[in-house]
């Protein structure tokens, strides 16, 4: 029996992002489309950053997860337009990021509160952090550094 699309989306929502494993590839908003083309399941994936080294790992993880569920023919299609935006992060994903210690993207261009202590006295250290999608900030209340998932 061919699994229906909501079931497949649910399975994909269990595939963790390789760099931030608390959120799924669906939370991240990089799975753009899932559709059956005959007996082949086509999954459209968009890269976060052009050079993000996780992109090929993500494609492999998605394929593996679907094979494990018994889907034999999977085709991963890279789709770059429209370009990925942090607006596509799910609400569930944002909440999980904050729990994990990464401040979620904010329209203000910087974090609202420190993900560790909730402090609001924050200083930007660098727009470039430990991965392409993050910036490096410091909380001046608890004096701890933290990652901010920057808007793009």
């Amino acid at each position, binding site marked *: 029996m061919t699994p229906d699309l909501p079931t497949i989306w649910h399975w994909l929502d269990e595939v963790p992002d390789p760099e931030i494993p608390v959120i799924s590839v669906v939370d991240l908003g990089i799975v753009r489309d899932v559709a059956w083309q005959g007996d082949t399941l086509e999954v459209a994936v968009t890269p976060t950053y*052009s050079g993000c080294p996780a992109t090929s790992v993500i494609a492999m993880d998605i394929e593996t997860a679907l094979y494990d569920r018994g889907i034999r023919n999977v085709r991963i299609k890279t789709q*770059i337009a429209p370009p990925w935006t942090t607006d596509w992060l799910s609400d569930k994903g944002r909440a999980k990021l904050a729990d994990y210690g990464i401040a979620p993207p904010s329209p203000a261009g910087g974090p609202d509160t420190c993900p560790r202590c909730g402090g609001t006295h924050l200083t930007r250290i660098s727009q*470039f952090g430990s991965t*392409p999608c993050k910036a490096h900030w410091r909380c001046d209340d608890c004096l701890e550094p933290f990652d901010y998932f920057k808007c793009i």
Partner: protein
Amino acid sequence: MTDQSALFEYLLRLGDNTLVLGHRVSEWCGHAPVLEEDIALANSALDLIGQTQMWLGLAGEVEGAGRSADDLAMLRDVWDFRNLLLVEQPNGDFGQTLMRQCLFDAFHLELLTDLTRASDDRIAAIAAKALKEVTYHLDRSSETVIGLSDGTEESHRRMQAALDLLWPYVGEMFTPDAVDNAMHAAGIAPDLTALRTRFDTRIDAILAEATLTKPDSTYAQSGGKTGFRHSEHLGHMLTQMQWLQRAYPGATW
């Protein structure tokens, strides 16, 4: 020159700019003055290499000779490269690297902005993707140029020297040739004169805040994007970048 061969050349220019600059910037990996800057340089390099994969991938597709982005990057000789002379210039000190980056980023951002409206959807899509990344690049390079230039006497002196050294390479970005004109006529490439005006507005504002003096000379080095005459530095860079694929053709890991 047919439109197809002009398009191939144009895509090589876009991809070679990001490839050569991406490689140059990656040379800093593990050597930057502070950890945060090391990370920022590595991330910028990564963005540029990612953009290269898209531009050269499309170039290979347009050429139709079965060459992949990797083939184009690793198996061409120096005279087949079509990057601007600016991006192949050596890193120098940290200030010189950031000055080169800032001059290129200001051009790159304006160019990509126009390319998002290109008549070719594939080019518009890559430009839209790259533009988001390059916006962050210019934020950082311009802030750093301003910070260092308006810093100590020593840092100011070095930044002015970097500007004086690199300024003769700015003109090439805006000097149109047959490829640029064919691509402009095809609704792909922008009018470089209008682009220059926007570049100048940006750079003048940055240099003013940086307390730097823009060189008077309008002399422009040329020969990079046409491949007619690269500086001696590119060949040396390629011996490093291409070494593995030249010594062990087809090696994978």
